[in-house]
C-alpha cells in the first residue's frame, strides 16, 4: 500500500503543453506520480519557456513548470511522428494539451483518431476562449484573458482613471489547478463508464467562474460592479497600510466592535473606542477613510512583522505584505516543507514551491527535475512501444525524432 503522495502511479499522460498553464497542469500530475510524457519538437515545436534561459535546458522557469516530466521529441509534421503518438495513445490514459483549437486535429491527432486507437483515452484541452465559438481562433495569453473576462476592470483601487489589473497571468493559475482536477475526475468516471471523455476547459471562462459574485450582482441588481481595492463591505478598518521601511506594508482587518476595542488598546488610542464616530461597525464603515489615516499613523512607525505579531497575539487579523525574499524564509511555509531544494539544476541552485496539500499519513516524495529535451525518446520507443534500434536509428536520420 502506498504511503507516499504518488497517488497517480500507473497513469500515463501525453502532454502537448506550452508556456505556463498546460505545463504546470502536467507537473501537478507528475508530482503525484503520473508518468507525464511531454512532446516537443526541435522543428518549431519547443516550449516557449525554454527560451528564457542561456540554453534550452537551463531556463529556471521551464524547470519550475515541468518538474518530474519526461521528454519525447517528435516531428509531428512527419507521418511517422503522428503514428508514434497513436501508438503511444494506445497505451496511455490521457492527453493533455493547450495548443490552439484545431491544431492536433489538423495533425491527424484529433479526438476521433485518438479514440479509435484507445476508446478509454481522456482528452483534456485548455483553449483560451474555448474550442468553439466565433472567437475561438483568437490567440490568447493569460495576460489578455485577465482583461477579457472582466477581472482587470475590477482589480483596482476605487475611482482610478485607468484600469490596472495585474502584471501577471491569473487565469493561467486558475486553469492549471483546475485541469488536473478535471483529468482525475475523468479517470474516476472511466472506472465505471469504461469510456474516455473529452473535456474542454476554457481559460477565459475559468476566470469569470472566479468572479461569479460580481456577475450575479450585475445580473440581479442591474448594477455594474465597481473596483473595491482594499475595502471590504463589512470590515473596517480593513486595508493595506504603510509601515516603516521602503515599500513595506501590512494588512489589518477588523470585523467586530470587540476587535476594534482591542485594537484601540494596542494602539494606545482607547479614546477612539469611545468616540461615536468609530465605536460601531456601521459608523466605522462610513468613516473608513478617516480611520485608514489613523491606522496608518500607527503602522508607519512599525515594521509589518511587529504589527502582525502584536495584533495576531490579540486575535486581530493582520499580516505582512510579503515579498519574494520574505516568502523564502517564511517560517510557516518552511514548517510545511513547502520548498523543494534543487542544489544543482542545469540553471543553478534554486528552491521551488511544491504543494499546498498535505495528506495525512503519507510522505511527500521528493520532486525530480524535468528530463533533458528528448532524453526519454529512445526508452519510450523501445521499452514502451517495442520498436527495434534499427528502426529508431532510421527515423532519427529522417528527422522524425527531432
Amino acid at each position, binding site marked *: 500500500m502506498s504511503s507516499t503522495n504518488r497517488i497517480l502511479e500507473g497513469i500515463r499522460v501525453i502532454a502537448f503543453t506550452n508556456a505556463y498553464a498546460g505545463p504546470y497542469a502536467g507537473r501537478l500530475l507528475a508530482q503525484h506520480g503520473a508518468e507525464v510524457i511531454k512532446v516537443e519538437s526541435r522543428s518549431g515545436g519547443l516550449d516557449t519557456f525554454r527560451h528564457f534561459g542561456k540554453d534550452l535546458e537551463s531556463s529556471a522557469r521551464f524547470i519550475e513548470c515541468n518538474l518530474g516530466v519526461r521528454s519525447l521529441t517528435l516531428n509531428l509534421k512527419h507521418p511517422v511522428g503522428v503514428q508514434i503518438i497513436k501508438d503511444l495513445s494506445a497505451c496511455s490514459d490521457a492527453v493533455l494539451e493547450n495548443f490552439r483549437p484545431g491544431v492536433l486535429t489538423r495533425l491527424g491527432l484529433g479526438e476521433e483518431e485518438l479514440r479509435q486507437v484507445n476508446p478509454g483515452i481522456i482528452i483534456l484541452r485548455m483553449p483560451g476562449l474555448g474550442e468553439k465559438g466565433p472567437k475561438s481562433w483568437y490567440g490568447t495569453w493569460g495576460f*489578455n484573458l485577465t482583461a477579457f473576462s472582466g477581472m482587470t476592470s475590477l482589480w483596482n483601487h476605487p475611482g482610478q482613471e485607468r484600469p490596472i489589473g495585474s502584471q501577471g497571468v491569473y487565469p493561467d493559475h486558475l486553469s492549471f489547478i483546475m485541469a488536473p482536477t478535471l483529468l482525475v475526475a475523468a479517470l474516476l468516471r472511466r472506472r465505471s463508464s469504461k469510456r474516455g471523455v473529452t473535456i474542454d476547459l476554457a481559460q477565459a471562462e475559468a476566470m469569470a467562474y472566479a468572479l461569479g459574485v460580481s456577475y450575479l450582482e450585475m445580473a440581479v441588481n442591474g448594477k455594474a460592479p465597481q473596483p473595491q481595492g482594499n475595502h471590504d463591505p*463589512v470590515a473596517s478598518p480593513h486595508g493595506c497600510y504603510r509601515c516603516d521601511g521602503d515599500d513595506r506594508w501590512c494588512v489589518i482587518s477588523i470585523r467586530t466592535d470587540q476587535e476594534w476595542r482591542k485594537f484601540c488598546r494596542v494602539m494606545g488610542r482607547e479614546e477612539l473606542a469611545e468616540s461615536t464616530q468609530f465605536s460601531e461597525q456601521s459608523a466605522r464603515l462610513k468613516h473608513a477613510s478617516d480611520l485608514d489615516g489613523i491606522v496608518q499613523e500607527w503602522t508607519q512607525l512599525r515594521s509589518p512583522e511587529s504589527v502582525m505579531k502584536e495584533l495576531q497575539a490579540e486575535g486581530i487579523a493582520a499580516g505582512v505584505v510579503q515579498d519574494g525574499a520574505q516568502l523564502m524564509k517564511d517560517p510557516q511555509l518552511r514548517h510545511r516543507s513547502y520548498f523543494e531544494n534543487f542544489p544543482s539544476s542545469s540553471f543553478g541552485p534554486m528552491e521551488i514551491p511544491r504543494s499546498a496539500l498535505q495528506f495525512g499519513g503519507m510522505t511527500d516524495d521528493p520532486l525530480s527535475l524535468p528530463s533533458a529535451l528528448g532524453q526519454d525518446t529512445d526508452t519510450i520507443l523501445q521499452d514502451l512501444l517495442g520498436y527495434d534500434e534499427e528502426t529508431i536509428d532510421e527515423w532519427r536520420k529522417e528527422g522524425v525524432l527531432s
Partner: protein
Amino acid sequence: MDTPGGSLLSGYRVLDISTAMGAFCGKLLCDLGMEVIKVEPPGGDGLRREPPFAHGHTDSEGSLRFAYLNAGKRGITLDLTHPAGRDLFLDLLERVDIVLESSGPDHLETLNLSYSILTERQPKLIVVSLSGFGQGGPYSHFRSPDIVTTAMSGLLYVSGDPQLPPCMPPETQSYYYAGLYAAYGVMLALWRREEQGQGVYIDASVQASLAIHEHVAFTYSAEGRLVKRAGSQHQHVAPANLFRCQDGYISLFATHRHWPILLEVWEDHPEELDDPRWKTDTERRAHADWLNPLVESFTSRYKKDELAHLLQKRGIPGLPVNTPSEFQQDPHIQDREFFAPVTHPEIGTYQQPGVPFTVDGDRPGPAPAPTLGQHNQEVYGDELGLTQKEIDNLASKGLI
C-alpha cells in the same frame, strides 16, 4: 449507468460544513457532478449575512455571495455544537464520501468530531480541511481573512500601481484559489480510495496555495530578484500592457514574434521603431516607458473590439478590457452559452455564470443555491428515515 450531460462524478456525496473559505471548493465539487449538502447552523451560514444583496432583500435569502458560492448545493441546517446534533451528523456520515470544513485547526476536535472519530463511523471517509495557514506551524492559529492570506502569499505585494498601495484582487480570490487547489486534493484522495480502499485527511493551506502565483518566491530563489508592483506592465514582454482605445482599453501582448507584424499593421509607425535593436523582447521591455505611449498613439485610433479583431487576424494577441457586462454580452460568450438562467425562489430568475468546462461538448446546467433548511425534510426524513415527529422535535429544540 450513464450520467447526466457534463456530470463527471455523480454518485459521490459531500457534507460541506465549511465557512466562507471553503464555499468555492464545495461549489466546484458540486459542478463536477457530486451531490454536495451544505450543512448550515440553524441561524444560517455566515455568508448569508454578507453583501452584495439582491435589491429589496435584507434577510438570509438575499445574499448574492451566498447564492453564487452555494449554487447547486442542497441545504440542511444542523447545530453541530449540540450532542444530539453531533449524533445526527455521525448518522449522516454513513452515506457520505467527503467532509469539507474550513473552521481552523482543532475545530473538528472541539466538536468531538476528529478525523479518527469520523472514520470510526465511515472508514473510507475523506476529510478536507482548508485553513489560512495549515493545521500546524507557527501561524496556524492566526486569523486569516482573505486580505491576510493574500498578503502573506506574496500576491498582494506584486499587485497594483507602483505609485499606490498594493491592491487586492476582487472578491475573495485567495479562498477561491485554495478551494480549487483543495478540490484537486479531493480528486487524488478519491483515486487512492478507489484503488486502495482507504480514506485520508487532507490539510490544505490558503497561503501555500496562492504562494505559487506569479513566480514571486521562485524568482527570488532562482535569480535573487524581487518581483515588484508594475501596474499592468508584463514582467518580460513589451508592448504587453493596457492601451487606450476610443471606447476603453485593449490588452496587448506582443513578443518578438508579434513585433514585426505589429509594425506592419501600424503602417505609419515612427521610423525609429524599425531599428533592429527593438527586435528583442529584453530591449523593448527595458524601454517600455518610452515605447508604451507611442503604441498608445496607434491604439487610440480604434475601438477596442475592432482593434482586437484586426490584430488577431494578423496573429497578434490583443483582447479588449471588458467590464463584466461587456464580457457577458460578447457574441463569443453568448454563442457558447456560458451564462444561463437560474430561478431562485426568493431572488427570482437571473443569468448565472456556468462552469468553465464542457464534457463531451456538454456543459453542466446551472442551479440555484438552497434556501435555509430547504432540504431538511428530504435529507432527515426521506433519506435518514426520521419520523415527522422526530424532525419536529429537532426543530423545536432549535437543532435544525
